[in-house]
């Protein structure tokens, strides 16, 4: 939790950015949560911060003045429970269904350069990537530790995961930024 600029500075001050880079390259399973799903990209629009660059892309701010199909004002931060549209199979998402909801609190969202890194999306005024994956890294924009049983199951799946990407992924392309 927090802001990208401060987070990167703290990681650097503690030398943890180098530790993370080494562990990512070494194949250790890594789970990014919330801000941790944003600072793994190349950069963040928040404080225009250069980030870790594990997945090509940018963390973007939700557009202002979004409204829903019912003409309700969409409030930012995106705060509360929302569901996932799973588009790529991954062991960490095993047994997660469209009924599962997860607790989100954020004003920025991860926007990877290619859809191939998007495992699931969610919707808040726009459709946005909510779960990213690349080799031994999985990143979730929501808080699994605050998402009841659905979140605990995801954490359990992560703990049992060996860090290998599944040999093949059943995919369909996400429709990002399309209003529903």
């Amino acid at each position, binding site marked *: *939790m*927090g*802001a990208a600029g401060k987070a990167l500075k703290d990681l650097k001050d503690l030398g943890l950015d180098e530790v993370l880079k080494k562990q990512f390259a070494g194949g250790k399973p890594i789970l990014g949560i919330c801000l941790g799903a944003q600072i793994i990209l190349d950069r963040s629009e928040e404080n225009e911060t250069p980030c870790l660059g594990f997945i090509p892309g940018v963390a973007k701010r939700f557009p202002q003045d979004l409204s*829903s199909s019912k003409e*309700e*004002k969409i*409030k*930012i*931060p*995106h*705060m*509360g*429970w*929302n569901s996932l549209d799973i588009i790529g199979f991954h062991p960490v998402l095993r047994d997660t*269904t469209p*009924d*599962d*909801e997860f*607790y989100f*609190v*954020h004003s920025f969202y991860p926007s990877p350069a290619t859809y191939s890194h998007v495992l699931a999306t969610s*919707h*808040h005024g726009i459709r946005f990537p909510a779960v990213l994956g690349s080799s031994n890294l999985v990143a979730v924009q929501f*808080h699994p*530790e*605050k*998402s*009841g*049983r*659905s*979140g*605990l199951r995801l954490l359990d799946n992560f703990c049992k995961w060996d860090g290998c990407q599944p040999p093949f992924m059943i995919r369909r392309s996400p429709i990002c930024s399309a209003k*529903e």
Partner: protein
Amino acid sequence: MLSKRIIPCLDVRNGRTTKGIRFKNNVDIGDPVQMAKYYYEQGADELVFYDITASNERRDIMIDVVRGVAETIFIPFSVGGGIRSLENMRSVLLAGAEKVSVNSAAIRNPSILSDGAKAFGSQCIVLGMDVKAVQRSERIPSGYEMVIDGGRVFTGLDALRWAIEAEGLGAGEICLNSIDADGTQKGYELDLTALISGSVNIPVIASGGAGSIDHIYDVLTKGRADAALVASIVHYGRVSIADIKSDLHSRHVKVRNKW
């Protein structure tokens, strides 16, 4: 699309919850941790703890409660009552609460909102608002005035103006309590809730007046609230969280139905 949240509110005095009489399943209704677990398992989306302890040792007792709750449940919860400083906020957040709620302290010293948001992020700063309907005037153009100390002291502050100002200062959410509706069980103050919720860009939790599921439905639709605080209606076992959610779901209000 976001689900509307149903949020039970628990009053805590000297480390013990003060309401809730008709609980089954061997739940110790005085134990905040057990109450939290009960509501967590019932499908509550979030919890609010309100510390009504009057003594000076309150902090330490409440911190133990917060720590116990955080170890037991895996949904967000906030803590309000007696939060007056950044230090108070820090200790509550470090003990495991997601959010802190400030009420009178923010009126006396608005910078606590901006300082808190800067230190911990807007997402964990909830502005608690106690509001009473009054005659519209030049000073109170919205016809709703901020009150403090349980509704006994009028502040001369317009509720709508204060909500907008507090959002600008860094409040990430508003918990809006109508003193007029509170405890009546005759329904939430819909006009007030719709006015505030439609005027700010942060989520609004409606509080005060829930006596039936219809009331909850009304405040989440006509009242435009993002979440509904519930107390007596669930504490006394008249309806369960599951009853509320299945009813709302059948009326096409999006709620979290799997837990």
